[in-house]
């Protein structure tokens, strides 16, 4: 049985960006239908580490990241829940002079942005953060960063979007989409036929296939984070930590559990399945035990993964299609899109309504992958 749906904007993908776009559009009076193959926030948006970080980002992403940081603070008003967002700060560690130089460079490059960055040499670092191993050379602290519970963010955006009038369809796979004349036409697995003037492709690790339906190309690779969590421990890790060059990251929630990750898990994009792989997490875990020696004898209670989209240059695609007017993409956040989700929703709403966004998207064009 075919059901016809006609909306202003159709959205494929129920991650934070998609749900936030739906909310922004619905609040502005647009009719919106979002389609999510599983449940909202069940992949990259929901399984990630939970770091809400501007620190150490690619400088091209910073204008987005700064705006998003404001939205994070505003979540209770915007979606009725803070999603456990706490501005704990993010501490990035260096193990030698060269790594320290990377941190100094970032602090220098972002001096005018009010990120609230503080550099620590060895002595000052160990005085301030006594739980760190003495081998850590130095670090940079970004106090305006924080952490949140990734499992709540997209669902609360979806809930708010529904309340604002958007239609959020879960367990509804879009099997194909075309543009006929002025209208996009989407077909779904359950037999819905959707017509819209605008189409937003925020389908995460699946988005490059949808881009491909319209002749857009991006060399996306699916990957999964390799996440672990410990039993509850006395609370002491009062900042989120990372290291220059990645490798390992960790945070502790007030309940006491230490969440940490590094390396990649196993993913099967077709079956929509993912899991952590012990072997792949070994180096990261070893490194964490070195950085936080008191974690050596703790117990690991759970591991997990999920499916994220990666692009070769480490930054996402955000912006209009190269081929099709009215189609906009936002995907390939390379494992660091959690913090950006809210602002990307805002940008997509601007693109859908005005065709352009306040923040420049020149660096994120899908055209950069065209030969």
């Amino acid at each position, binding site marked *: 049985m075919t059901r016809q749906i006609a909306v202003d904007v159709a959205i494929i993908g129920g991650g934070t960006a998609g749900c936030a776009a739906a909310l922004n559009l619905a609040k502005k009076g647009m009719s919106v239908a979002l389609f999510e193959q599983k449940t909202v926030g069940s992949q990259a948006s929901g399984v990630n580490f939970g770091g809400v970080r501007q620190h150490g980002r690619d400088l091209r992403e910073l204008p987005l990241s700064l705006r998003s940081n404001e939205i994070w603070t505003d979540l209770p008003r915007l979606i009725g829940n803070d999603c456990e967002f706490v501005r704990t700060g993010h501490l990035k560690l260096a193990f030698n002079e060269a790594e320290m130089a990377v941190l100094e460079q970032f602090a220098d490059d972002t001096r005018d942005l009010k990120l609230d960055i503080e550099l620590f040499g060895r002595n000052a670092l160990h005085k301030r953060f006594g739980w760190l191993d003495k081998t850590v050379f130095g670090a940079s602290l970004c106090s305006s960063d924080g952490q949140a519970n990734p499992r709540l963010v997209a669902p609360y955006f979806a809930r708010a979007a529904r309340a604002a009038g958007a239609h959020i369809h879960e367990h509804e796979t879009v099997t194909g989409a075309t543009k006929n004349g002025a209208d996009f036409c989407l077909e779904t697995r359950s037999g819905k036929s959707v017509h819209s003037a605008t189409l937003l492709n925020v389908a995460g690790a699946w988005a490059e296939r949808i881009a491909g339906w319209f002749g857009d190309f991006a060399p996306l690779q699916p990957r999964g984070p390799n996440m672990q969590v410990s*039993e509850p421990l006395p609370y002491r890790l009062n900042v989120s930590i990372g290291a220059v060059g990645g490798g390992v990251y960790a945070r502790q929630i007030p309940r006491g559990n230490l969440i940490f990750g590094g390396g990649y898990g196993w993913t099967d994009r077709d079956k929509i399945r993912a899991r*952590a792989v*012990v072997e792949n*997490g070994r180096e990261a875990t070893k490194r964490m035990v070195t950085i936080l020696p008191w974690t050596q004898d*703790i117990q*690991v209670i759970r591991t997990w993964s999920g499916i994220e989209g990666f692009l070769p240059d480490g930054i996402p695609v955000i912006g209009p299609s190269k081929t099709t007017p009215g189609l906009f993409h936002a995907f390939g956040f390379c494992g660091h899109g959690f913090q950006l989700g809210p602002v990307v929703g805002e940008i997509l709403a601007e693109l859908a309504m005005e065709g352009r966004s306040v923040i420049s998207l020149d660096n994120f064009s899908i055209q950069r992958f065209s030969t």
Partner: protein
Amino acid sequence: MASERIVIIGAGPAGVRAAQILVAAGIHPIILDEAPMCGGQIYRQQPPVLQRDYSELYGFEAPKAKRLHDTFESLRGSVDYRSDCLVWNLEQKNLHILHAGNSETISVDRLILATGAMDRILPFTGWTLPGVFTLGGAQIAFKSQACAIGRRTVFLGSSPLLPYIAYQYAKAGAEVVAVLDTTARAAKIRALPGLLSGGMTFIKGLYFMAWLRTHNIKYEYGVTPGEALGDQNVEGLRYTDQRGNQQMLECDAIAFGYGLRSEMQLADLAGCDFRFDPVSCNWCLALDGHGRTSVRDIYAAGDGATILGADAAELSGARAAHALLGDLNLGSQDTALGRLNQELDRMNIFRSALERAFAYPHHLAKAIPDSCIVCRCEGVTAGEIRSAVHELGADDINRAKAFCRVGMGRCQGRVCGPATEGIMAAVLNRDQATLGRFRTQAPVKPVPMACVWEKPPEDIVL
């Protein structure tokens, strides 16, 4: 073929009988067991310092326990038996093992899962007080530590174990305050025709009930648990009797439970299919008629696949081994498989009757108060689970887990899973089977950090 590495996980009734069949066919399996000695939960052995004889420990089941232990002893020279081994992860065909604080990996060609079962509970107010145990826990204290869980114990729930453990306790000299059965007497009577097919097992059950009666131990039917009372420790139990009257019993320990649930985490990590059994309200492994799971080269037997009890576990253990031998082209196994399935079919009739005589009280999930903790690992209350449904629209159990952390802690929902399913089914007015089951994520049980960062040696004896 002779070089294939065959591993049995679990050395209870199913694992031991599987090993016996394999050894008889000239195969030397590796047996990994979490316990220090073979026997599983039901035929668990006491530590060497204790000297009670078989009849004192196992009662009527003493001959079966002895046979199983003896069989295993006779196999010791032909199997690579590793006790105290927790298999905490399965990635493709690699097993991750925790033994004496160290991690090892073993790659396997074929695997028989005989992982057993654990108590199934439904929380009630006060169940987290010290002094409240599961029925199985009360029995382990008795068998393995030669002690009772309290001086004055109430036994509560719905399980064939209920009269049996009460009898064991009373016979050993502990005071049994009362046995409170949540199944109504009428349901027991309706189950009688099926129960009769159980032969000796049924007669033994009758004997326990009669023994309790002749020793003036109160046995009530159709009760509804109310609240475990007490401040630091259990001091009493409030409940509603079958006539609807509030009652209170003084006690210093409560053992409760509603039958068993299969330990299926490894099968889940292997990607095996499951099915929901509406009679027992339990998730079971989906098996072909011969103990093969849906995943190639993985077999399953015993209560770890479907709750059928110890006698059936021995048969299904043998069945899985015969299926495996057939798959190795070691001669036709049809006769053996046919005979085993005939016996298992007969036991199934008894088992369904038993499931009705000691019915799972799924209606109790609806009545769990909002303030009652359901997931004790993460401190999640029934009210928070209901909110996850109302507020964020959780429509399956893993969504509820994502939203409110139920089942996310140390035990990964092995304890709170059935209750969470029941609570959500009631809120959503849906069949419990439609809510799914908690997805397993490694480790199966908590493991020391060293397991995930030290490269384990590939360590195989034999």
